[in-house]
């Protein structure tokens, strides 16, 4: 390994009780505790952090929430590398990429990536979307429930173009629940059947309630450094082998193709090229599952199956426990937790799997894992390829 190779050395997530952060903590408190846990797991201290990367939906009220400034002040750290890129739920996969570049170039030694949300405690989810100004003046007036409506439009088009069925989408929720049943931290752990998904209330046709992710609080942190620094730290290093990012739109009318994730295709292609491997070399994937359709579209975009074959891929049970292509092994946004911007939890689970720390849900022999975040309304995609050697 080259000395400046970027590695992940610490992760932490905030324990939840029925989807809530106990004690009604603020986003700043949640972040602080997660950050402290992640740096201490690595054998570091917050004093060592000289790179800060964060994104979220909280911030000091008023114009320009400036979460990076708020957070560095709150934690009393003075970063020499900072990044508040917010491209939605995929921001954290992009943060890993940006921190990797900064570490490789020597702009920082210890990068801290954080996320916190109290959206379930706050009951703050705004289904009506953004104010009808700028680009959203052409969408918000028509009452598309957000974000479900946009994902539903993509699912409807995928069914039209490829014959994908509601049953096939439901298998994604069912397979994911199989993993959640093995994760004591997951919110939903009861067995789930395709019939139960299909019997759940329709939200936005063709997506039903159990095609949709949970709405929870949550917080997480990821700590990165160089391979050289990692040699003296507590945890085996997890290497960042490849990354890529892209985004195409935010309003649905501007999505290039409704049944295809162009942003994920570009992000994945870049990440695989950098890692020098292809989809066949991935042992485990953590794929953003805001909705069942998100997983299906991402599997196709990253080349794990051909365009239009995502439904058939899932219905064979390949992604469930015992299948040959494990995904979303913590139970995902569909059954574990989904605090608004879920991408940091993809990374946390992949790192724990690569370290072999996952107990009943541990996948045997994981060497290479892929995380893919999706943000906005199928708008942004960011891919991270991680390896434990």
């Amino acid at each position, binding site marked *: 390994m080259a000395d400046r190779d970027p590695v992940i050395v610490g992760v932490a997530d905030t324990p939840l009780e029925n989807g809530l952060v106990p004690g009604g903590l603020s986003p700043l408190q949640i972040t602080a505790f997660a950050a402290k846990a992640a740096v201490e797991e690595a054998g570091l201290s917050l004093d060592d952090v000289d790179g800060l990367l964060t994104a979220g939906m909280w911030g000091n009220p008023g114009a320009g929430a400036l979460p990076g400034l708020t957070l560095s002040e709150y934690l009393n750290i003075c970063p020499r590398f900072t990044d508040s890129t917010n491209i939605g739920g995929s921001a954290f996969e992009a943060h890993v990429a940006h921190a990797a570049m900064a570490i490789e170039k020597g702009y920082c030694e210890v990068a801290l990536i954080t996320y916190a949300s109290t959206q379930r405690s706050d009951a703050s989810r705004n289904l009506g979307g953004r104010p009808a100004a700028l680009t959203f003046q*052409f969408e918000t007036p028509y009452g598309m429930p957000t974000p479900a409506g946009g994902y539903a439009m993509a699912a409807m088009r995928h069914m039209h173009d490829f014959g994908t069925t509601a049953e096939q989408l439901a298998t994604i929720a069912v397979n994911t629940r199989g993993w959640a049943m093995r994760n004591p931290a997951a919110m939903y752990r009861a067995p789930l059947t395709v019939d139960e998904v299909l019997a759940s209330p329709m*939200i936005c046709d063709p997506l039903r309630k159990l095609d949709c992710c949970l709405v929870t609080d949550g917080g997480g942190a990821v700590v990165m450094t160089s391979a050289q620094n990692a040699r003296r730290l507590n945890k085996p290093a997890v290497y960042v082998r490849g990354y890529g990012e892209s985004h195409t739109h935010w309003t649905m009318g501007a999505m290039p193709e409704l049944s295809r994730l162009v942003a994920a295709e570009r992000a994945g292609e870049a990440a695989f090229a950098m890692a020098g491997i292809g989809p066949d070399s991935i042992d485990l994937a953590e794929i953003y599952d805001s909705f069942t359709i998100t997983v299906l579209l991402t599997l196709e975009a990253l080349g794990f199956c051909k365009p239009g074959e995502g439904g058939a891929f899932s219905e064979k049970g390949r992604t469930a426990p015992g299948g040959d292509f494990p995904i979303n092994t913590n139970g995902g946004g569909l059954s574990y937790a989904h605090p608004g911007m879920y991408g940091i939890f993809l990374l946390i689970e992949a790192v724990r799997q690569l370290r072999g720390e996952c107990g009943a849900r541990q996948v045997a022999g994981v060497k290479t894992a892929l995380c893919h975040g999706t943000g906005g309304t199928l708008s942004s995609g960011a891919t991270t390829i991680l390896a434990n050697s």
Partner: protein
Amino acid sequence: MYQKPLPQPDAGTRPFWEAARAHRLCIPKCRACGQFHFYPRALCPHCRSADLDWVDVSGRGRVHTFTIARRPAGPAFKEDVPYIVALIDLEEGPRMMSNIVTGDVEGVRIGDPVKVRFEDVSAEISLPKFIPA
């Protein structure tokens, strides 16, 4: 009193909303490359030219995709459920979001022909919506 969110026209979009108030669907067309686009932008997204014209279009199109909202996008839409939110491919090329106003929400299909019908919702704003053609 109309409770739903009203579009907030700005310098770049006011001609669209002014035309809509007169029940005309009027969108930018590039003088350089000849292509239409929507929503209105300062530069043609196809060729980057700033030489744009406002042109009335047919108001005819087809359903590219849609969803049936079974739960409202906020309390103001509560009375409307179930309602259709759709992406319409206009005959002239661009795609736009709107509602399909129909008594038969279950009958809407991708590819269905639709035509614009304006809904006057305030003194300044008329929303272009679509009905089966």
